[in-house]
């Protein structure tokens, strides 16, 4: 027997078994820490190009889910299928301080696979024209996070995992970053799983909002209102109230 069948590690995400339009397909996924089920028998399908916001209180397991999808952690049981080509932007930019900005964008890519011009173009796309030669130390928090976005997108991922990427930024920078993320999403068309604990951010950005509570999804809501109209949308208050209630903030 020359070619053994690819061993499918049941608890690691793999990409077979995905139908053409799905980038994530999870069935009965459970993850426990000690006695506590962080993820309790969850199912989740994310379609190509979908923008999904995942809300949850601290410790609700949303970051655990992201880490499992990014292959940084393993589920204890369940059936996991995820498209290859995943990128992550973390809450902190996590740039290598000893590499110039453009080298940070190239992290993990072979020298010949991407030109300096491509990297500069990617930096231009996030509003950092001409800053490829800077050291990360000289960047502001917002700029560093833009580099992290460029680094994630330059490899054209099919699934972009965002783990509260703007939580540490000031309110004004955040608004700019929201615009930027939507623009990049439209242009590159990855599916996005955007983890946040900010209800307004979720409602403004996403096609679909999930709320994770006690290890289960308690809300799975499609937002159909066009994004441009959402700030003044009458239904906004109702959705907001509903989500905050599910998060246990209001009753």
């Amino acid at each position: 027997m020359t070619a053994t069948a690819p061993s499918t590690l049941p608890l690691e995400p793999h990409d077979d078994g995905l139908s053409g339009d799905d980038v994530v397909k999870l069935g009965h996924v459970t993850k426990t820490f000690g006695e506590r089920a962080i993820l309790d028998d969850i199912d989740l399908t994310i379609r190509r190009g979908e923008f999904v916001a995942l809300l949850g209180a601290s410790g609700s397991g949303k970051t655990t889910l992201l880490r499992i999808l990014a292959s940084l952690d393993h589920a204890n049981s369940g059936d996991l299928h995820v498209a290859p080509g995943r990128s992550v932007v973390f809450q902190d930019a996590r740039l290598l301080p000893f590499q110039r900005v453009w080298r940070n964008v190239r992290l993990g890519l072979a020298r010949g696979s991407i030109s300096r011009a491509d990297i500069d173009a990617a930096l231009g796309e996030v509003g950092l024209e001409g800053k490829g030669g800077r050291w990360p130390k000289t960047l502001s928090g917002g700029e560093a996070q833009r580099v992290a976005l460029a680094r994630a997108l330059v490899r054209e991922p099919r699934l972009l995992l965002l783990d509260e990427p703007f939580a540490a930024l000031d309110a004004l920078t955040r608004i700019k970053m929201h615009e930027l993320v939507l623009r990049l999403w439209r242009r590159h068309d990855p599916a996005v799983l955007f983890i946040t604990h900010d209800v307004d951010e979720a409602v403004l950005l996403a096609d679909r909002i999930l709320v994770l509570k006690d290890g289960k999804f308690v809300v799975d809501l499609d937002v159909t209102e066009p994004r441009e109209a959402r700030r003044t949308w009458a239904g906004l208050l109702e959705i907001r109230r509903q989500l905050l209630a599910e998060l246990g903030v209001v009753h």
Partner: protein
Amino acid sequence: MMSSAQVVGTTLERLPVSSEGAESRVRWYSPRNVIRALLPLAALLSWHVLSSTGVIQPQYFPSPVTVFEALVELGRSGELGQAVPASLARAGTGLAIGIAIGIVFGVLNGLSRGFEEVFDSSFQIVRQVPFIAMVPLFIIWFGIDESFKIVIITLACIFPVYINTYSGVRNVDPKLVETGRVFGLSRFQSVRQIILPAALPAVLVGVRYSMGVSLLALIVAEQVNTENGIGHIIFVATGALRIDIITGAILIYAVLGVLVDITMRFFERRLLPWK
């Protein structure tokens, strides 16, 4: 009727302004460096004054002028020109070998639990033994020639580099390593592209420390059967009770120490431009 400012009664405090933070190049004669040189120069001056007024008696401690003359004499006779390179070569060889061993084991033990379990405890035990205590044994093992001197300097230089490299590798931010994994770096790539560069500042701290220690070990090593080197000059001068030459040689060690510091600053600036 009082104006509102008087009613509140607050006197505004004038805040100072400062040009600090405005870019200015540091030159050798810039105020900071002048201040640094102040105390050593003052010490030299008071040494001279106390010697020439007879407070310090020349049979216990020579005047700076005598010491300077002794150094000139050593220079003229060619002894100095032979001794300094000989000593530097000795210290440099031991230092280079010590740094290499320290870095190799520091990296391996920092990266691998297995290596660490085998080697680290032994390193920690040997580290606690003052290298000077090993001199009699080393004389028996290596004789009293050059190899003995290199070994003693090497031994002294290993541990500062080892300890700093080890902790540098161990304390690399795990989030950076994780980021490498997300973007598809293999273990080898992660070591080369993330762990080693991130540990470099700590390694350089160890190297700087070892350079100082190498001079210390040099002095000890050169007290034993030396035919050249600064230690040899001191040895001969001791026999002849030439305290001016002894003091001059000690000053040379001090100057070498300063040069070590300047060298390391240079390397740190070149190797860590991102700092």
